[in-house]
């Protein structure tokens, strides 16, 4: 749940989602769920020339499984907190695995 928890805090921030088919979509993160499906609004494709079929699209819903990377806005990330959250997550997982 760490990533879900993390991405929830990025809602209403602009992110760039890089898909496994190399399309990079920049848009405002509107929603994310536990499968890390992502809803973006106001999108623009980074290499618009290459993907003209996307030029008319304004909102997208991206299935989590097709996401390769999400480029984060650094200013919106609380790194120490994220580190701690990661530690807690690791501890949780370790506890569960036991």
């Amino acid at each position, binding site marked *: *749940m760490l990533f879900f928890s993390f991405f929830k805090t990025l809602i209403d921030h602009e992110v760039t989602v890089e898909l496994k088919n190399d399309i990079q979509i920049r848009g405002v993160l509107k929603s994310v769920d536990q499968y890390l499906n992502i809803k973006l609004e106001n999108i623009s494709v980074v290499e618009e020339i290459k993907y003209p079929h996307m030029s008319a699209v304004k909102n997208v819903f991206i299935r989590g499984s097709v996401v390769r990377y999400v480029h984060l806005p650094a200013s919106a990330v609380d790194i120490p907190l994220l580190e*701690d959250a990661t530690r807690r*997550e690791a*501890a949780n997982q370790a506890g569960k695995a036991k």
Partner: protein
Amino acid sequence: MSFFGFDSTLHNPAAAGFSQAHNPFAGLSNRDDDADALEFEDTYDGLGDQLDETDDAFNDDTFGDTVGPVSSRAPVGKDFDFFGQTANVANAIEEEHVRFHRQQPVAKVVQSVQQQVPQASTSATAYKFAPQPSSYKPARTGYEKYSQEPVAELQVDAALWGVAPKKQPAPAPVAAVSPAPAQTATPPATSTPGPTGRKMLSLEEVEAQMRAQSKKPVALSPAPQPQVQQQIQHDHGYQYSQPTQPQVPAPVDHIQHKEQSFHPGHGHPVTILQRPQSKHTPPAQPLVQPTAHQRQPPQPPPPQQQHQLHQLHQQSHQIQHIQQPQQIQQKPANVQILQNPNRLSGDVANLGLHAHPTPPIPANYPTHPVHQQQNSFSRQQILMAHPSQLAQLSEEEKMAYMDQEAKRAKRNHKIFLMSRDNGIMTPQDKNFVTRIQLQQLVSATGNPNEHGTDESLAEDFYYQVHNQIQGGGRQHPSQPLNNFAQTYLYQTGSRQGGPRRHNRGPENHMQRMEQQVQRAVEAAKNKPKNKQLVIEGSLGKISFSNAKTPKPLLNIKRNDSSNEPHRPSSSHKQPQHGTDKRSELRTIESIYTTLMKMEDHDRIMPPPPASDADAEAIQRFVAWSNDAQALNAQLWKALRIHDHSSAQIHPFIALLSYRKGKKAMPRIFRHTTQEQRTTILTLIVVNLDSLDVVRNAQVTTGDIQLNAAMRENVELFSVAVMSTLFNFLNELGLDLVAGVLGLVCTRNVGVIAKSKIGVSMLTMILSRAEIIKHGGGGSEHDWRAWDATYGQFFDLIEPSLPHIFPGTVNSGEDVYVWQLLAAIGIGASPDQQQRLVLAVKDRVMDTVALSKTLPQDLASQRLQNVNLFMRSIGLDVELLQ
């Protein structure tokens, strides 16, 4: 014209070439180009002239195209239209037939027309009904049948049932056919024929007719009976087997009834019912005809009636589906309508307005074919209330009326369509679905009851804490409340002010929902958490997933052995070879783990007991304190402050060489006692020259050559560690500060002073002492100790002073050095100040000289830096310029 610079003029398009079809006329066109064109006349062989066209005149014989007037040609053009022709003949025959019956008193005719009207109107949806006098024959298109008399051809030959076709004008054969059923049907009144007929028209009716007449002269042309009949034939859904049937017998029954009981203009609601069964009754039809109408001379209906028919026709769709058992006729219209599934209820109400009480009808009616006619007759009346009424309406009113009707019908139809699915789900089903949805909601967002608890924090730590920080600026979450499920499910509950069980109504519904959620959550919690299912003998295992933990793809079994070296919790147990990177990192992790535990522990701190009487509170607090102390001890142990092995570098200092080790410092200081902090400070100062940020960040007088990583390290250290120490040092007394400075003196001051961190540390210590002095703090004894230490320190650092500046004068990054010099200068004796000036004189002069070549703002900044030092010893840069 040339593309791509290709000169097309060089290309002879007429010339044959590859991929070019041979153009036999290429030569010709060439010649044309030469203006040597051939005339058509020159090349024409004149074969066409030899054609013998003289016998073309016989074409007419062949194809029937006579030279005569257009009108005479019309029949020829129709030749192909066999269907239409036949139908025409059929119509003519039927017309004759009807005409025969029409020759009754006018009144009967009128009513029969009215009766027909509704039927005709029923056909409206299917066909465009264009009543025209049969005599009027427009140019034929071949499609007349479809627009004018669509149903006519569908008429079933009565002979099929062994009945002579009605077309035959002679009534004789008809009469011969089964007479029995008809007799029962005929009411006694039937015998009274024509005489009353005409008179039955009301004044309004007559007026309406006259008005209509004046409006539509075209329609007025004498309409032969057949027209009407044909119109009647169209029935929307059902094709009546006997076209003539409704009209013919109708006069018999209805007229009599009407005349006797009520005004012909008003229909009664009952009549709405029309039966599809009429199809089956055709054989009976002939019987009626002879009995009722034979004696009456055929009489064409008044033109007005036709006109009315048009109007009525439009409304016909409303009645299309009416099929009712005839028994119902006697009941109020509403009842009948309800029985008919296809019926539009809206019509009923409307019709009811115009409807009159149902006239008494003989009980035997239902079975009789004649009734159908009555039905149709009354039906018309219902629709229109009255043909004349409609006629009286202005065009706009009519339009509005139609519009309204259509709208209502549409709406009713919609309702009907939707209502088909009514009750598909029982309330239990709905409940069930709701519960599933809520369960999903809860599992997706977590149990609202758990929010703020450790469990929810563990699952959603980042989000919740982040929100706290963003929102409240608090460092740590207390009880975050912003949650989806809470907002939607539990807030509404609290708004209602707790359980009000007896309250029936919408709130109750809400509460029940809440309870459901709670139960669902309970159930979900109690459900044994089987994460996976291993079927005996199978090679794989089936993993279950839920919303919270999507399917785990990796199932790694961990050994439970606690001395397994991979687990962070065990890391601090292995101090044997404590200097390798791996164990150091593990140590840092254990520190963090402990820190987080302590932070969690802090959050559950019970309020300190208000009084000694509250034993329970005291106990709780004591228990908490014990836990806190245990955690503190754990942390202290993890820090390995006292864990000095034979290694060259103290383990704690080694931890500080890692980024996360540095970053842990502020938090460590928050959870340690004053004594422990002092120990840490001491430890750091003692090892100052072995800190990586000091050791590996020595400045040179040449170019600045710290690499990026080291600079980052230094930056982080000053932010994380130095600021922490600075805050701590600012709380220390002079004695401790002097002690710290004394510790520095035991180290390699030269090395320390040549690093930014070291300089900062020295500045920090010295300035703290100065601040204490300004504040009047410190005992005499302490000051003496301080002065002694300071003297020692000065002696140690003096040789290094010229070399502690980073880079050349030009680099301009020496502000922190000037700060140190200022700190030294303030506390220095006049003698020491002089030595100080001598040591750094070159740098001062260089800087001043440089500043003269720099732009104004840069120069002033440099000079200001120097001035920090100069002023501390009572000088000013101005004096040097």
